């Protein structure tokens, strides 16, 4: 083997919320753990780095809406039934009370100064199950706990390029490189957990066509999906895109904050689209409001604004309290834009993305223990199918740290395939050997341009087939991409991983020959605008990659859920005018 091999019982790739929790749990179960992240410090790496303010969880404190059973029903509904509840329950739902204790033990306060839980409702939750907490430092607290745990070693500044398999097909390690020095690194481990977040930089999220202008951090790209697919794992539901409403120019979560403060959504004609009804004395928004905004824009009545100018000065001043950790730079953005909320409406625009969000069932497919189809390879956090936002990342990391440690303890000693590692070393470093050719940015831009045009919000068979052809050709062009330093090498590999994901996403978008929407995700085929429930309700398409092309298969939906849905479609809240029209719900 070339160079030193870094050894551990459990290797965790990705040091965000799920990765840090998994590392702690694996070590507490007795495993030695190596945690790698491409950020040099995991203190604030990942999507939650700047802080979070909401944790969607039941607490089982006696109210009928506050139980794991109701939570599971809600979760299955908002995921359109496209999630295996036999996996979601043990991995994402049942551990939540233990996860809350884990957070409090880690120094993350979940209760307010009076010792009470502060919980709010959303239009789409079965009750006030959204726990508001001071999560400004949730990531530093979890990172500190990981660093302070015996047997956890954290290695930053490493971009992972492959999961390594032994001759039986079991995951026994990984490879990567130092993003500054370009040193190639080999890891040997009894079990590998990939927790690199969801898909970003697939299409241009923003109408600005700036790939780094995203809501979640753009840097994880689709690396986790590619690592898993190259090793033989599959991903589910990656054809679905999410749509959100963000301030024009800056993707930040200000919409809910302004609306809950009393702001009104108005269209370009100055007409009120929506303000929030009072429900039990509080304003609650649902993501259906994004659909209403989308409807206005698509009907030519954009742009849309959130107008707070009618609010009394005291309420305007209080908005800074609402804009907590969801939108930390929003007030600076307004100030630098010269916008005064008491005098000017704020323009918002639609962002489309391949990322996951609350209730999204997309991700790498895992079983109830978090293991993918590849023995010894686990997926956690936003990358895994049943994870939804913060709660899912915490819960899956909590369970999988333990199950991966158990796997490593009972499995045979891991043996790397030296020739496979050598081949991966050549592939990894090849862009450094070229001094001319295609720059990573041009290569990535071409992928994003293609995906935005043909696999973005509006899709049809011809466009999808054309995209698939282009993407095959772009595989060869990857051999012309050059990199001048470690940073560029990282971006080049992110782009290679994007192309692999793009091929899988394009194939499943072609396969699902219908249109389907939930309250915040959708798949719209202009050539198949209706939902085909008989064939597709609750059916996920799974995508793998055999090295040459995507390989697809279908799941069988949970029979009871499917029957209930066919009986009463109103359970699924559809996205606004367009979704409802397309699904045949309105004329």
């Amino acid at each position, binding site marked *: 083997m070339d160079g030193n091999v870094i050894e551990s019982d459990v290797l965790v790739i990705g040091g965000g919320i799920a990765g840090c929790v998994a590392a702690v749990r694996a070590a507490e179960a007795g495993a030695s753990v190596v945690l790698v992240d*491409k*950020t*040099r*410090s995991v*203190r*604030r*790496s*990942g999507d939650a*780095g*700047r802080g979070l303010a909401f944790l969607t969880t039941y607490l089982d404190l006696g109210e009928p809406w506050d139980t794991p059973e109701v939570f599971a029903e809600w979760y299955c509904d908002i995921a359109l039934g496209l999630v295996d509840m036999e996996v979601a329950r043990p991995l994402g739902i049942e551990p939540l009370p233990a996860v809350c204790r884990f957070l409090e033990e880690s120094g993350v306060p979940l209760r307010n100064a009076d010792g009470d839980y502060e919980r709010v409702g959303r239009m789409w939750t079965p009750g006030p199950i959204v726990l508001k907490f001071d999560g400004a430092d949730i990531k530093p607290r979890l990172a500190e706990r990981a660093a302070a745990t015996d047997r956890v070693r954290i290695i*930053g*500044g490493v971009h992972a390029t492959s999961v390594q398999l032994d001759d039986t097909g079991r995951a026994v390690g990984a490879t990567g490189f130092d*993003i*500054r020095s370009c040193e190639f690194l080999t890891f040997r481990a009894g079990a590998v957990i990939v927790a690199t977040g969801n898909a970003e930089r697939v299409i241009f999220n923003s109408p*600005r066509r700036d790939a*780094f*202008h*995203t809501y979640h*951090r*753009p*840097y994880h790209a689709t690396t986790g999906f590619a690592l898993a697919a190259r090793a033989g794992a599959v991903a589910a539901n990656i054809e679905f895109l999410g749509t959100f409403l963000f*301030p*024009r*120019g*800056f993707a*930040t979560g200000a919409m809910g904050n302004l609306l809950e403060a009393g702001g*009104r959504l*108005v*269209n*370009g*004609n*100055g*007409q*009120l689209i929506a*303000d929030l009804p009072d429900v039990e004395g509080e304003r609650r928004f649902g993501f259906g409001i994004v659909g209403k905004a989308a409807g206005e824009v698509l009907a030519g009545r954009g742009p849309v*604004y959130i*107008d707070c*100018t*009618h609010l009394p000065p005291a309420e305007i001043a209080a908005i800074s309290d609402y804009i907590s950790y969801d939108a*930390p*730079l929003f007030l*600076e*953005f307004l100030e*630098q*834009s*010269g*916008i*005064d909320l008491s*005098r*000017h*409406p*704020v*323009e918002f625009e639609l962002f489309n993305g391949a990322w996951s969000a609350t209730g999204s069932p997309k991700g790498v497919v895992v079983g109830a223990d978090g293991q993918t189809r590849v023995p010894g390879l686990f997926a956690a956090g936003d990358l895994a199918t049943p994870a939804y936002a913060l709660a899912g990342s915490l819960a899956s990391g909590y369970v999988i740290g333990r199950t991966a440690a158990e796997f490593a303890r009972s499995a045979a000693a891991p043996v790397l395939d030296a020739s496979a590692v050598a081949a991966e070393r050549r592939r990894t470093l090849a862009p450094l050997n070229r001094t001319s050719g295609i720059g990573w940015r041009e290569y990535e831009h071409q992928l994003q341009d293609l995906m935005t045009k043909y696999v973005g919000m509006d899709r049809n068979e011809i466009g999808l087939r054309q995209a698939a052809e282009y993407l095959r050709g772009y595989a060869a062009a990857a051999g012309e991409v050059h990199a001048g330093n470690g*940073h560029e090498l*990282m*971006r080049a590999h992110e782009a290679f991983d994007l192309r692999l994901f793009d091929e899988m996403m394009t194939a499943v978008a072609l396969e699902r020959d219908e249109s389907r929407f939930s309250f915040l995700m959708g798949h719209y085929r202009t050539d198949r605008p209706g939902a085909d429930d008989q064939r597709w309700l609750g059916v996920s398409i799974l995508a793998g990659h055999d090295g040459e092309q995507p390989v697809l298969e279908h799941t069988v939906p949970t029979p009871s859920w499917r029957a209930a849905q066919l009986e009463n479609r109103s359970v699924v809240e559809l996205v606004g005018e367009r979704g409802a029209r397309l699904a045949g719900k309105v004329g």
Partner: protein
Amino acid sequence: MAPRINENLCTLCGICQDVCPGDILHIDRGVAEMVRYPDECSYCDVCRVECPAGAIDIEFTWSMRQQPISILPGRPDHD
């Protein structure tokens, strides 16, 4: 510009380059060349929060900033 480093306050301690999730910040060539990849900044605010010297401001680029609109959309009604 994304992060703007105040050279009078920056001590080149390197914390910002360690916490930057995009590897945007590099301290090896000093303050003037520290923001090495501004086009890849995602405005996550982590460098500013972690800077012990308070030397970082986040500056939105000209094209990101909105213009305050001088004509208000008509007052919304509740009809």
